């Protein structure tokens, strides 16, 4: 009994030694440091560019001139409207009447030349509300134009209705634009992120973004770290350090040490990415942007994050063990690319179908694929984020996935045990089986 537990402790010790060795060597490598810094920089730049595009903090408000006595009812209300804003897009500047329309126009042009104003408004009598013309050298930004338009729309209603004896409440109600709110609701108690209260449009957008990001991360993580596992194992084989390793540590320990080490490496990079994004989102000006977009970070369902981690790790292990098995039967690194091709293809197909399915998460092919182990990490996670699968569906897919991982892990370990000692031409399935028997793997 004691020796058994001793052996366990020893195996765990060795596992930890292998994990920390492969992790440390990778983390110190220039490639790792460079990609990590790139990830942090790119995510920062992406968020800040998004801020610049959406919030446009450096644009000054356009100064728009008008003749004071041309349409005082309109311009007075307009000045008051923009004057009341904290950061108005438009500033209005009234000028005294120069006498004739021609003289006014000349004076305005002169002011534009001097840079005093960007353009000016002309009002022509047209029924109850004047016809408004904006004259400038350059066309107005669409954002500013639509702002001006909606302001004038409200003023028009205000002027026309001023005689209609409306209450303040009616007036406000009238000024409000019509909004259609789309709430996604759950008809059964599902495992998805659609709670009992339903999911608002903003939350749906948020879930979409998260699912999208997680699917990309999963794909990249599996591709990059999977290739790394295979490359390292083949390199150990071709440099023959493998012969010493297999006499020092059980192949199973060695293989899973490497897989876990690379998993931690991938997670470290994702953590760096997540941390950078979080820091960027915490900055006051980006928070303002999210408020503007009606996106609330707190509307993120924590369960979705938990599922993201579960599916990342399970998906990684499924593919990672297979990458290890392939790495073990290849003798030279040059042959590796070709050998991992089938695996890379499956991962790629799953990824692209997953991205494709995002727009229609309830399609029957999405539901079917979410039970097929190689697709489950992408598809079941997408369904949880975007649709509303029942809890038993999620659990069933996870059970199938875990069972497959065990099976594939066992098979990979056998292949690994045999493959690491086979040199020369890459063995076929029959040769591998023969060798397995010979090695009593």
């Amino acid at each position, binding site marked *: 009994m004691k020796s058994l537990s001793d*052996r366990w402790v*020893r195996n765990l010790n*060795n596992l930890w*030694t*292998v994990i920390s*060795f492969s992790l440390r*060597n990778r983390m110190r490598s220039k490639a790792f440091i460079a990609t990590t810094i790139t990830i942090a920089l790119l995510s920062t730049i992406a968020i800040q560019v998004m801020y610049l595009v959406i919030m446009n903090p450096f644009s000054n408000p356009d100064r728009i001139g008008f003749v004071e006595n041309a349409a005082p009812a309109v311009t007075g209300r307009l000045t008051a409207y923009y004057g009341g804003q904290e950061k108005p897009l438009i500033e209005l500047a009234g000028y005294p009447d120069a006498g004739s329309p021609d003289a006014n126009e000349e004076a305005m042009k002169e002011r534009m030349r001097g840079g005093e104003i960007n353009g000016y408004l002309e009002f022509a009598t047209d029924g109850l509300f004047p016809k408004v013309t904006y004259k400038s050298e350059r066309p107005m930004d669409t954002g500013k134009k639509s702002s001006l338009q909606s302001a004038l729309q409200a003023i028009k209603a205000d002027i026309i209705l001023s005689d209609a004896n409306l209450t303040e409440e009616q007036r406000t109600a009238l000024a409000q634009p019509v909004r259609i709110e789309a709430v996604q609701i759950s008809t059964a108690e599902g495992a998805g992120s659609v709670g009992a209260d339903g999911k608002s449009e903003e939350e749906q957008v948020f879930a979409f973004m998260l699912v999208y990001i997680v699917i990309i991360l999963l794909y990249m993580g599996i591709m990059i770290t999977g290739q790394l596992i295979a490359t390292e194992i083949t390199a*150990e084989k071709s*440099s*023959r*350090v*493998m*012969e*010493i*390793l*297999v*006499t*020092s*540590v*059980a192949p199973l320990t060695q293989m899973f040490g490497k897989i876990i080490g690379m998993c931690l490496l991938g997670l470290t990079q994702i953590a760096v990415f997540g941390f950078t994004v979080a820091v960027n989102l915490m900055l006051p000006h980006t928070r303002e942007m999210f408020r503007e977009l009606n996106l609330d970070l707190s509307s993120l369902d924590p369960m979705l994050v938990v599922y993201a981690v579960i599916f990342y790790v399970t998906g990684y292990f499924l593919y990672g063990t297979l990458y290890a098995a392939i790495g073990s039967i290849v003798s030279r690194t040059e042959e590796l690319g070709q050998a991992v091709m089938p695996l890379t293809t499956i991962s790629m197909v799953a990824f692209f179908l997953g991205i494709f399915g995002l727009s229609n998460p309830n399609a029957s092919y999405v539901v079917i694929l979410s039970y097929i182990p190689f697709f489950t990490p992408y598809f079941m996670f997408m369904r949880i984020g975007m649709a509303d699968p029942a809890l038993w569906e999620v659990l069933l897919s996870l059970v199938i996935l875990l069972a497959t991982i065990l099976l594939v892990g066992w098979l990979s370990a056998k292949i690994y045990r045999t493959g690491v*000692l086979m040199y020369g031409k890459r063995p076929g399935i029959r040769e591998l089986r*023969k060798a397995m028997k*010979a*090695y*009593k793997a």
Partner: protein
Amino acid sequence: MSTLQVERIVKQYGDKTAVNGISFTAEAGEIYGLLGANGAGKTTTMRMVLGLIMPDSGSIRYHGKPYSREQLRDLGYLPEERGLYPKIKVSDQIIYLARLRGVSAKEADRRLKEWLEKFNVPDYYDKKVEELSKGNQQKIQFIAAVIHDPSILVLDEAFSGLDPVNVELLKAAVKELRDAGKTILFSTHRMEHVEELCRNITILHRSNVVLQGGIRDIKKRFPRERVIVRLEDDGAIEGLERIPGVRSVEKRESGYEVRIDRTDAAQAILDHARQQGDVVRFELMEPTLNEIFIRSVGEELE
């Protein structure tokens, strides 16, 4: 109780027999030689001793106990094709390998420094393996095999590709380990190393044992059939080939090398030479291991 006891181990790959019933025992403080041409089954035998592959039949006992995962820690291995991580620092990988075999990092570090000192290369501690010359990589490889202080050491072609200075350095290290009571299984093509180091040997040919035993005994089994004779001032000796029992005569730098069929022909050669001048060198040579090797392997071939 022998440290290493191999009994009639057989290994087959498909219909090809790689090792066919080899038995030998090696004691503590002994270097056991395993000789054979390429493909004779040396590496397969060593791999079985290392537990990398299991024999189809027969048994291997270590200190009287059968193979187990635990025994691995008591084995050190220097593979024929050298294997180290090319891009990792010497200290990092040696300490890693030592830790996998249950040595603490601190202890491994101490031993590594000691070994580097012994091999006159203390500054390699911080170098990457790819920066070292082949001979120096070999030293590191050797340290990797012994860093966990195993009682059984398997050295496959330990001295191949080394310059004479480094061969002496490693040879001294191997002898030191032998004197410290380690059991060393040693394979090589270089017969002079075997003659210098090994007490007992096994010669393998095509998966079979063709010759086995102590080097002294083996040599006694083969007749002495080579005579070296030389006169003062390298004087010529006429008519050697006419002496009965002489097979061939060859003039070399060291004198005349005469091959004989019968041992008593040697005395006749000496008498014959004396009549023609002062003999400064006369020796009835033992067969070299090289000759024995070629002969036993060659006879098998016929």
